[in-house]
């Protein structure tokens, strides 16, 4: 197991390098630079700034410089937020994004598994159709459409929840962003669970469990849930990526200064180091989380384990 993990981590390094290289090229390929504005800089100053940030060097040299900084764990200074380094920005923003993302993921799993199981148990009934229809809307309606609707309803009209992240410091400010982020995933996981659960419920060992008089709840909880979860587990990898990207919209709407916010603004402002830093960070995160998912898969399915 340890050897497997180490091998996976080692194998991820070339992937990460490739990601960084591609991101680097793309970011520099976009027209415009971090210091462009309506108001043009005096040429002497512009030259000076470029020299200070090594932006006047040929691209390969800049790339190597970036990599050597990366190896030392230094992601560079931000070109726009000149008072902060990229490391500081990420260190500040990530825990926020993490909390919201993790909560959203947990909510998505719980609600999705629950709804999907319910639909599977009553499949082809009206309840099943209702759950599936709701989940379909959850998948089809984009975040930036229903998030403002939720805000209008719960914050403006009913005043139950804060409309923005910075307006309160308690639990209530997590609710809307977490739910918004989780909704499309709930829908997707519900559908996956339903299909998988229906399939599992047909299997022979479920018939055995029923013949043992375990009752539906026990049958589902003890016997059906673990195998039914396997496709959901496989989906976790892309789901995590989706939450990371979905967080961009949510952060804009609720004014949360998380990684998504800095990522988008960094791209728009051509803040190369911020964008690259977050790309590296996200890539490493996704690789790591996929590894965790694989290990979890083995935890559930013992036949995979004894390879």
């Amino acid at each position, binding site marked *: 197991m340890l050897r497997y993990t180490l091998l996976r981590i080692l194998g991820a390094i070339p992937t990460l390098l490739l990601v960084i290289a591609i991101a680097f090229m793309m970011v520099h390929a976009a027209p415009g630079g971090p210091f462009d504005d309506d108001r043009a800089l005096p040429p002497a100053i512009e030259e000076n700034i470029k020299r200070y940030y090594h932006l006047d060097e040929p691209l390969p040299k800049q790339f190597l410089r970036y990599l050597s900084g990366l190896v030392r764990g230094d992601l560079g200074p931000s070109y726009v937020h000149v008072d902060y380094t990229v490391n500081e920005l990420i260190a500040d923003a990530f825990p926020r994004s993490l909390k919201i993302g993790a909560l959203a993921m947990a909510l998505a799993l719980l609600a999705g598994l629950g709804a999907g199981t319910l639909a599977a148990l009553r499949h082809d009934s009206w309840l099943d159709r209702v759950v599936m229809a709701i989940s379909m809307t959850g998948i089809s309606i984009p975040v930036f459409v229903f998030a403002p609707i939720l805000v209008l309803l719960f914050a403006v009209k009913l005043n139950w929840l804060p409309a923005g992240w910075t307006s309160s410091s308690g639990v209530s400010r997590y609710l809307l962003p977490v739910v918004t982020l989780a909704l499309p995933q709930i829908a997707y996981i519900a559908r996956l669970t339903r299909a998988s659960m229906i399939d599992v419920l047909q299997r022979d*060992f479920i018939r*055995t469990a029923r013949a*043992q*008089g*375990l009752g539906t709840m026990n049958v589902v909880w003890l*016997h059906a849930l673990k195998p039914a979860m396997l496709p959901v587990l496989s989906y976790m990898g892309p789901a995590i990526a989706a939450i990371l990207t979905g967080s961009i919209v949510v952060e804009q709407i609720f004014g949360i200064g998380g990684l998504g916010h800095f990522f988008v603004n960094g791209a728009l402002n051509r803040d190369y180091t911020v964008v690259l830093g977050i790309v590296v960070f996200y890539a490493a995160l996704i690789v790591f989380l996929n590894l965790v998912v694989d290990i979890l898969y083995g935890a559930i399915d*013992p036949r995979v384990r004894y390879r």
Partner: protein
Amino acid sequence: MSLLEVDNVSIRYGDNTVVDDVSFSIDRGESVGLVGESGSGKSQTALSILGLLSRQARFSGRIRFDDVELDKATEEQLNRVRARRIGMVFQDPMQALNPYLRVGRQLRAVLRCHELATAAECDARVMEMLERVGLPDAQRQFRAYPHQLSGGMRQRVMLASALIAGPDLLIADEPTTALDVTVQAQILELLEEIRDDTALLLITHDLGIVAGHCERMLVLESGRLVESGPTTAVFAAPQHAHTRALLAAVPRIDRVDIPPPATGQSILGVDGASVSYRERGKQRLQAVKGVNMSLRCGETIAVVGESGSGKSSLVRAMLGLVPMESGRVVYAGTPLEGPVERRAREHRRDLQLVFQDPASALNPQMRVRNIVSEPLLVHEPGLSARARLKRVNAALEQVGLADEYLLRYPHELSGGQAQRVAIARALILGPKVLFCDEAVAALDVSVRQQVLDLLQRVQADTGLSIIFISHDLAVVRSISHRVLVLYMGRLLEVADNAALFSHPRHPYTSALIDAVPVPDPVVAPKKAPLRGEVPSLLNPPPGCVFHPRCEHAREVCSATLPPMRDIAGTRVACHRADEIDLSR
């Protein structure tokens, strides 16, 4: 008052009636056999007792169990009956047990959900049950996952789970069909021992099992109960035509016309064949070791063995489907070498193979006509379409299928018809040697005989040589000229048909023969001839591989490998072959 009363039960799926007005009863402690061919409705009847039918089933009738009206019971009430008062064992334990949970957990769940034990006592009781069903190392098996156990052990676990709550009635749906014959004998014996006064409803298609283990029997045909009565009476004087047909079709070891030994030259020879597998990072698995054999023209050799015996591996190696580690195969004087893709075309044409399950062997998207003509496209591409069609028709005629089957799809054929199509496909090129890997195992008893007859007919007409793999000794008895007995990849005995069954030389052969249930209620079932299970192929016993389970074993057997000797025309690998007498 009887324990279980089934009155006028009918089960329909849409327009299809699978169980038609069936009524019977079971008394306390009684053992009743429910017999029928596939599709006769036996399983459906059993499932309906416990309310386990699928949602599309339309049920009518009445089922009374003790004081509970099962057909009108709510799910709650049914759950109180299930496992606690009626236990059920299913056919394939690999599918019937949850592969994701440890064995102990699954059994514990039964106790806990019915609140029959506290958390503290639970494990002890489960362990006790596992020991009762004969698991050799209950501690380890408690924590094992189903895929880590052998087939026999899994079925024991199933039995344990069905009986652990102490039910009054045990329903066993084909409990031994998926098992080797020696293991089957053990499980049937276990069943007798362990059920005490629990009533038993044993569902099976094997009349031998019914004869040996059921006091009464019920016969179903196409959903209707056509005969019922004490087993001895039914066997002695069957009333219904279907029962008579069934009894007649049962292959028997003791009373059968066997083909005379074949003469003629050897057409296929195997010399010291060994096959082993090795997965990356794992141990080497020796599937076949040092097997010698020769096949004559027009002869049928049966290769007999249980799971792990290497029969399939041997055949695949001969056909070039898996690499042979050492040894050679010689066909018509020329050695056959290399994987099948690189062999000469004539060799590929002359050696053909028929599989066990026709449903998976035929491409479901191709019509019969295309399936059967496919080999022609490869080996005789010059043929015109019309010529091809003629050949296809001839092949179908050979296997006894009329023209109308040309355009059918595999799913529109019955098991027997599908297997005939597979045989037609194998025969269309006029091969010299036909390999049959459990070709009739998946077929109903009556159909089986027809296919065997067909094979014999073709052999008589064309001089086809057949290598017939089977675990079913009764089938082997009826069609083979000579028999090879394999155990753990080693050849134990080679004998003529008559000699093998009347005077087996190897203790294993003898045990195999004894393990087959005799379809005669008058004959008491023999004690299970073998204890234990086939050891792991990764760790074969030293010396004679069979010695740990052999009741005739001596010291020499564990020390040295027994050489192959010839005794009265039989080749046998046993140190004590000339000392022990196994004739019957």
